[in-house]
């Protein structure tokens, strides 16, 4: 079981490394979206500090959605996905592996980048660290829920816009707790409740989402 999981993760990471541009583009998108906000609202540091958590989190949601297109589409196009389905290995396991790889390529680097962006938005040390912690705990949930949308819209025309429409409303709790953690931290309170809720959401999604994704993939591959 673990070997299947690791094999899928290894394969997806290897594929991503062979096309580094795709991974880099998502991260570049994340940074550029965040950069647009100070240009839009002005360089006033107080304002920036106020909007930083929301801006970084919304950018993280959008980057996650943008990168979802790659999650199953390539494997669907060349038939690998069908092979995985027919392989006799539990589909949920393969799905979990693919999502882990997806998170390692988007969620993890975004978490690291957020430390830099926190500095650009003049966040103090504590809120900045909270921002990174909230992203670390919350981005797995983004990958997991997003994968449901990606599986449902597999092979549909206009799937990219559609997946945004389906997934963003489901991201609301993650956004609220993620940005909320940073805000409470900036207000001098402990962000622990928010972070625990985020972790809880990720764990619950980790337990439930693979089944929904598996069902969605079976529907899409019929």
């Amino acid at each position: 079981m673990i070997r299947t999981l690791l094999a899928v993760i290894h394969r997806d990471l290897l594929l991503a490394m062979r096309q580094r541009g795709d991974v880099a583009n998502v991260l570049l998108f994340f940074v550029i979206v965040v950069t647009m906000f100070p240009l839009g609202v002005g360089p006033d540091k107080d304002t920036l500090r106020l909007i930083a958590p929301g801006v970084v989190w919304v950018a993280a949601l959008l980057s996650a959605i943008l990168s979802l297109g790659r999650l199953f589409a390539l494997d669907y196009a060349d038939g690998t996905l069908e092979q995985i389905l027919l392989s006799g290995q539990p589909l949920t396991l393969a799905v979990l592996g693919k999502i882990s790889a997806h998170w390692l390529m988007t969620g993890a680097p975004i978490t690291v980048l957020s430390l830099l962006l926190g500095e650009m938005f003049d966040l103090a040390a504590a809120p900045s660290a909270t921002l990174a912690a909230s992203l670390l705990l919350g981005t797995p949930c983004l990958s997991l829920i997003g994968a449901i949308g990606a599986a449902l819209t597999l092979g549909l025309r206009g799937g990219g816009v559609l997946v945004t429409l389906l997934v963003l409303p489901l991201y609301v709790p993650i956004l609220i707790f993620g940005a909320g953690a940073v805000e409470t931290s900036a207000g001098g309170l402990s962000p622990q409740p928010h972070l625990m809720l985020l972790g809880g959401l990720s764990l619950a999604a980790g337990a439930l989402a693979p089944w929904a994704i598996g069902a969605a993939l079976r529907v899409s591959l019929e």
Partner: protein
Amino acid sequence: MQTETVRPSSFGFHRFAAPPEFYRLAGRLIPWFASLAAVLAAVGLYLGFFVAPTDFQQGEAYRIIFIHVPAAWMAMFIYAVMAFWAGLGIAFNTRMSSIWACALAPTGALMAFLALWTGALWGRPAWGTYWAWDARMTSTLILLFLYIGFMALHGAIDDSRRADRAAGVLALVGVVNLPIIYFSVQWWNSLHQGASISLTRAPTMAATMLQAMLVMMLALWMYSIAASLMRARAILLERERRSGWAQAEARG
């Protein structure tokens, strides 16, 4: 094509799961539900607009509550019903269940929209603003987005079987998420709490107000049933367009 021949059960109720039977029964029931909806709405609006006392704080403006609250209830309730039928459709692969889910979605979206729209119109005189990021308003807006997502996904897939099942998975994911969204939004609002707006007004409600509201609630129930039966009939006829009975029905 599993439901063409249905074994008679002890209740004889399952036979309405067969498309032609359902189609005919629905056709006979729609006028009843529609006229009940009209009568109840007339009574409810009369009670609400003429009989119920004027609110001492909000004056006449509060009367929009008689549409607003039942619509908000229906919006939430229909989503649960829709998810139930969608789940049934996935679990047992029954065509009528999925058609029901599909037929309920636009009515649910309409109710969510009505609740938001009347809420905005009510908010203007009551709070001085059309829109406040109140927890209930925000979660109703997200509910509307979920309805739209369901319909958009269904509409994007040409094969009706795949569309039913994909949209069904989405409805189930949504119904699991809905309470989480609701509570997170509520908490978010209590954290931000800019303007001091309280929705918990009118601690005691006059009996006539409650009666009017319940009658309007029933009216919207009847309307929703009539509307989704009509939509289910249309969907059924479209999907069964190659079968003999559907062509006979379409010819009239």
